[in-house]
């Protein structure tokens, strides 16, 4: 039997008595910080372009999901984390997050070409890369899985009382998976230290957000679990960093999880084999022309008096590093055949 609602009780507006995080400020970065953001984003851009090229030449196989266009998200957010304590987990579009952590491009590129020197010794590939040293927990191929896994990382932070925060990235597509909401519920119930980052690049493969999501304002997806959400301009690295600061303040003070919806855009197809016919070329071009995160930082730098000529050496240095990583990844040997049977289990029985 359904309960009869009490007629006399006045229904309160749902949010007034709940504490909310402040609206984040755009981060005010020093010139050095801005240059560092520029360098990291450009590294991701050039690395991904090169990866696309190597895929086209057959050096990289299988699925390869590029991060081009979304650079500001990983760079802005991860720059705010404490590398000693905090952990990060993401899905299969993972190259950018690893580069933002300063992991050697050679090790990443060699994983893409399936070589022994790759970060997963060639056995994982593009979608399955990990660096426990950097507290980067992958690199997961099943849509949405990393949300529960990230919640588990947060559980471990709380259990160990290590002061760390977990950051779990997932896309607008993954935000419709059931386990996301099961995780939200537990995270809020147990006040787990986690930042859920929805990288809303507006297309889950070929399906736009409004064709797949009844509530397409994804930052609101935590409301029924009392998890606050903030919508962020994911094409602006300073907005991303500012949001991360606010989110970290919330989570570190023991208030439980928070959601950041990063409005971003991927310039390329879902994967290398997606012709992306579901959107117009004009749409992509307009994002590139008006909202490019790297051009945005360039303008900020210009305002601080950094000229194009002063950026040239950085560009050259990045191009060189990326080319070296590609040369290395093409030439370094494949795993030894005996590696086929290693790492299946840890122990011997």
């Amino acid at each position, binding site marked *: 039997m359904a309960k009869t609602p009490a007629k006399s009780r006045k229904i309160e507006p749902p949010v007034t008595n709940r504490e909310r995080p402040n609206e984040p400020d755009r981060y005010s970065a020093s010139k050095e910080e801005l240059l560092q953001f520029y360098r990291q984003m450009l590294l991701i851009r050039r690395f991904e372009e090169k990866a696309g090229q190597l895929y086209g030449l057959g050096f990289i196989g299988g699925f390869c999901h590029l991060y081009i266009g979304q650079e500001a998200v990983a760079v802005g957010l991860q720059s705010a984390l404490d590398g000693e304590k905090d952990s990060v987990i993401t899905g299969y579009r993972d190259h950018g997050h690893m580069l933002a952590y300063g992991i050697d491009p050679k090790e990443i590129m060699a994983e893409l070409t399936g070589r022994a020197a790759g970060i997963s010794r060639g056995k*994982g590939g593009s979608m399955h890369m990990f660096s426990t040293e950097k507290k980067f927990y992958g690199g997961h*191929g099943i849509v949405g899985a990393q949300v529960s896994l990230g919640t588990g990382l947060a559980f471990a932070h709380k259990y160990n009382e290590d002061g760390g925060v977990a950051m779990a990235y997932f896309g607008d597509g993954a935000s419709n998976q*059931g386990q996301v909401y099961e995780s939200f519920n537990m995270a809020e119930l147990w006040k787990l230290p986690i930042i859920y980052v929805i990288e809303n690049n507006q297309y*889950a493969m070929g399906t736009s957000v409004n064709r*797949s999501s009844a509530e397409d304002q994804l930052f609101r997806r935590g409301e029924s679990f009392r998890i606050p959400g903030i919508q962020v301009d994911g094409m602006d690295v300073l907005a991303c960093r500012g949001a991360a600061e606010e989110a970290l303040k919330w989570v570190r003070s023991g208030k439980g999880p928070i959601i950041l919806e990063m409005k971003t855009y991927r310039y390329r197809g879902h994967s*290398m*084999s997606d012709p992306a016919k579901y959107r117009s070329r004009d749409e992509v071009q307009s994002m590139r022309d008006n909202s490019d995160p790297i051009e945005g930082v360039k303008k900020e730098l210009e305002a601080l008096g950094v000229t194009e000529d002063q950026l040239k050496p950085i560009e050259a240095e990045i191009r060189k590093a990326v080319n070296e990583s590609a040369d290395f990844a093409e030439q370094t040997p494949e795993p030894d*055949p005996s590696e086929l049977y290693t790492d299946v289990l840890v122990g011997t029985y």
Partner: protein
Amino acid sequence: MAIELKMPALSPTMEEGTLAKWLVKEGDSIKSGDIIAEIETDKATMEFEAVDEGTIASILVAEGTDGVKVGTVIATIAGEGEDASAAPAPKAEAPAVEQKAAESEAPAPKKADSGTKQLASDKAASVADPEVPAGTEMVKTTVREALRDAMAEEMRSDPRVFVMGEEVAEYQGAYKVTQGLLDEFGAKRVIDTPITEYGFAGVGTGAAMGGLKPVIEFMTFNFAMQAIDHIINSAAKTNYMSGGQMRCPIVFRGPNGAASRVGAQHSQNYGPWYAGVPGLIVIAPYDAADAKGLLKAAIRSEDPVVFLENELLYGRSFEVPKLDDWVLPIGKARIMREGKDVTIVSYSIGVGLALEAAETLAGEGIDAEVIDLRTLRPLDKDTVLKSLKKTNRMVVVEEGWPVCSIASEIVTIAMEDGFDDLDAPVVRVANEDVPLPYAANLEKLALITADKVVAAVKTVTYR
């Protein structure tokens, strides 16, 4: 030095394509990210983006050229180092003639071939099906088209049938299996879902309980693991638990097994998993005629069916009988090749390898019989045992892990019901017992080959 632009591959299997259109001309300056050309294959059109910056020095392959091999130099760019002097000049500085010569050699890239190449070779001969009436016209059809035709025919004849899944409608199928269905049947019956496998598998199962006939497409069966509870606990057990009152006529279909270089989480054969579940029918066809005839049977069945396709076979063509209603019986294996010395049992993509091995063995005087199980549950024991009685030797070929596999089941059947017919222990040829590695060389080592089948046959025939 001029930077060479090479014809890119759009997928791991692409070898050549059409240079459909140039969006730049010689002398144009380009920067990283600019779309410079459109490239077409039979499956898709892709935009080719510039990675390097500079000026287009020369265009070496004209637009509209077909059959351009991957790796061919299609244009050159004068790089940044040179553009100070060359950029404003529209005249290309690289000597085009010299470049043309280089182009004709079409340098092959050092491609790391996928181990899946060894799974789907063209060497396996096409086999005639004795169930096809004599004189029937046969039409070359890809497995992809055969599956689509099966769904379309059943949708035309039964309004209860609908198709639901990720990217099945507007995108025309992640692997283009549902191509054209949205146009013909509309959005009511061809339904794009969000990425919510557990949810839509449950919605489909409920709709089947409610009297509809859903065809639920999983983008791959790897993602069906998110939904396996509904397949097993909700769909498979309904009829039994309700004492036969409540039916669940649903088809769960999609690609299964190893695909090319997609790594451990996207390369698994779920045949043995589902075949262990009472209440399910499990079908895993090899060629296009079986794919069509069995998918039609699956859709018509009153029981829940798990229909395991194979991505590596989608693009392969086979003869399909041109009949108004080509429906095959569920639960019947097919003798793909008759022989007297040894029986090779397989299913799905393993059948091609078994046929290829049988050809090789014939050259060495060993006459192999090849059986395609086609349905994994219920398993056609009779056909297997009858063949064993004739040949007295058996090898099972399975693109999947060896432990607790369909091969294990066939071995058990031979032990329990065919022991007296065995002149040698049954040998199984399966993938290595490890998660599928990404590295090309390890992937090749992990997967089965026709050579391994030949070796196994020699073991059981003591050659």
